[in-house]
């Protein structure tokens, strides 16, 4: 008997539509898998067992009646815990929201439910999406399924680990500075951050609104096309949501790379990049070359400023986005309130937030304050323009820019939690795509000591198809 939890979404949907597979059987297998290994991995914070089985029964009934089913027919999905799910606890891995039950669904959740996906539960993350290792969760870390002593990456560590360990067939995360690509790379799965504005942010609990997008995580590129098609689309509840024409991403699952021009910015291989990472990524680039793609080493100097610019903007927006957590309308509330409101608020938030979150809020408050706004926030936004211009230029000459997703291999738990800057440096290669709003993907391209290494492809806005084409060819080729 197949280990049903190892199947891809494509395989699942095919078998279900052919009447070869019962949703209940498949979902039960996934739930059992979660039961078996999640006590160790800790990818999930909430498992919605009853709801999932109920939905599975409905899907089986629909199949029996011969009704048409959605594109994600019965597929078991894990959802990052900063994406609102109606009547299901949504905590952002924070004490601040430990008992928050949203009265509404994120628009993306409505979309995937309409396509008959089945939500298995909510996954662990760095608190309020601030982190690159999922070690900053109020509920404890998630472990890397490939090596339990290592981190799974972050902040969508739970979502990536769930897919990597077959505790979910696909998952949704969010990517603000690499939060989906990083764990995808560290867990050996596929993660893509779409063009900013393609996917609705309504219901994504904000960390840095001008930078983030809900992003899919899958086992392979084909599954990615299925999930991506389902989550993009205009949302009138999100003023930054684009009216995009429907794209059939599966049309990009081609078998050739002829004519593809790849640029390789040397800044992506800068100081601090692990030799083994470098080696594996270059191997992949050479493989692409062998498959018909051309490549050039290029230099984008403004990349030197990307990380600083990203962090200044992200923490500034975060300091404002997280101001609402005062415990009045929802969330954690201290018992004793014998003092005035401002003292009560301060004591409440002291207890509600973890240290990394506090750090970013305090520094973000500083970056926006009178006398410093021009020097930090405004300047960072200007640097953003510079980087955007440089990339636009690069994209006129190259279809794809390539480099490592992460400069280092998955690191040990506790290794980088002492020094904030050390942790921030992990995001060097992923932040540019968020700063300029362009799509980027991470796919596994090799490993070292069984630790996965991801290659990142970037392209111009709305050109997800080319990312898919490039990734697919490489993926298929690396399989052989």
């Amino acid at each position, binding site marked *: 008997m197949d280990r049903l939890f190892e199947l891809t979404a494509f395989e699942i949907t095919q078998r279900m539509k052919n009447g070869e597979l019962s949703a209940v059987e498949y979902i039960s297998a996934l739930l059992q898998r979660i039961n078996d290994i999640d006590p160790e991995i800790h990818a999930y914070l909430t498992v919605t067992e009853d709801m999932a089985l109920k939905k599975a029964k409905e899907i089986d009934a629909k199949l029996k009646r011969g009704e048409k089913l959605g594109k994600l027919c019965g597929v078991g999905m894990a959802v990052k815990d900063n994406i609102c799910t109606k009547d299901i606890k949504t905590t952002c891995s924070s004490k601040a929201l430990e008992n928050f039950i949203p009265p509404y669904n994120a628009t993306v959740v409505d979309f995937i439910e309409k396509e008959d996906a089945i939500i298995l539960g909510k996954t662990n993350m760095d608190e309020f999406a601030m982190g690159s290792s999922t070690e900053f969760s109020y509920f404890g870390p998630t472990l890397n399924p490939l090596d339990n002593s290592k981190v799974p990456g972050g902040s969508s560590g739970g979502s990536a680990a769930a897919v990597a360990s077959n505790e979910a067939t696909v998952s949704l995360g969010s990517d603000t500075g690499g939060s989906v690509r990083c764990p995808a790379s560290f867990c050996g799965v596929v993660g893509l951050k779409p063009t900013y504005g393609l996917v609705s942010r309504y219901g994504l609990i904000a960390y840095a609104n001008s930078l983030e997008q809900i992003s899919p995580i899958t086992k392979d590129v084909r599954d990615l096309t299925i999930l991506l098609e389902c989550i993009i689309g205009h949302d009138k509840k999100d003023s*930054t949501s684009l009216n995009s024409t429907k794209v059939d991403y599966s049309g990009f699952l081609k078998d050739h790379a002829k004519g593809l021009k790849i640029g390789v910015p040397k800044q992506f291989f800068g100081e601090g990049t692990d030799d083994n990472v470098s080696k594996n990524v270059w191997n992949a680039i050479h493989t692409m070359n062998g498959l018909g793609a051309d490549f050039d080493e290029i230099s984008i100097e403004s990349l030197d400023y990307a990380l600083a610019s990203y962090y200044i903007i992200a923490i500034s927006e975060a300091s404002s986005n997280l101001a609402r957590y005062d415990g009045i309308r929802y969330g954690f509330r201290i018992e004793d309130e014998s003092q005035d409101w401002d003292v009560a608020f301060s004591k409440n938030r*002291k207890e509600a937030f973890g240290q990394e979150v506090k750090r970013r809020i305090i520094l973000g408050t*500083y970056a926006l304050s009178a006398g410093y706004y021009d020097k930090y926030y405004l300047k960072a936004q200007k640097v953003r*323009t510079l980087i955007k211009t440089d990339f636009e230029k690069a994209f006129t000459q190259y279809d794809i820019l390539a480099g490592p997703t992460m400069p280092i291999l998955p690191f040990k738990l506790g290794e980088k939690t002492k020094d904030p800057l050390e942790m921030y440096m992990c995001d060097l290669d992923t932040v540019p795509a968020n700063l300029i709003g362009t799509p980027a993907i991470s796919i596994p391209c090799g490993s070292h000591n069984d630790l996965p290494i991801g290659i990142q492809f970037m392209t111009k806005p709305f050109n997800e198809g080319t990312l898919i084409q490039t990734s697919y060819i490489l993926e298929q080729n690396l399989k052989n």
Partner: protein
Amino acid sequence: MKQNNEKISKKEIKHLSWLAKIELSIEEEELFSKQLNDILSYFKKIDEADVEKLSPTHHVVELINVMRVDEPESSASDEVLKNVPKIKGRYVKAPRIV
């Protein structure tokens, strides 16, 4: 706050703690004092960038005039109040204001 120092002083950290409404312990003030200055030193990298003449990118989407029609929609207000920790009748309770 003066712009003389390149560093954040303990006094400024206290002020930021007040502005952000997050009470910090003495240890946290101590720790943040060091860490935030380290991070700020890294942020100073952007001083090297020649961007004075550029306009800032506040939005990466090039949308304008996104608006909605002035048509009321009812919403289940009881649903929306379900998470309120302290409620009195139909009022949301907040700590006192003097």
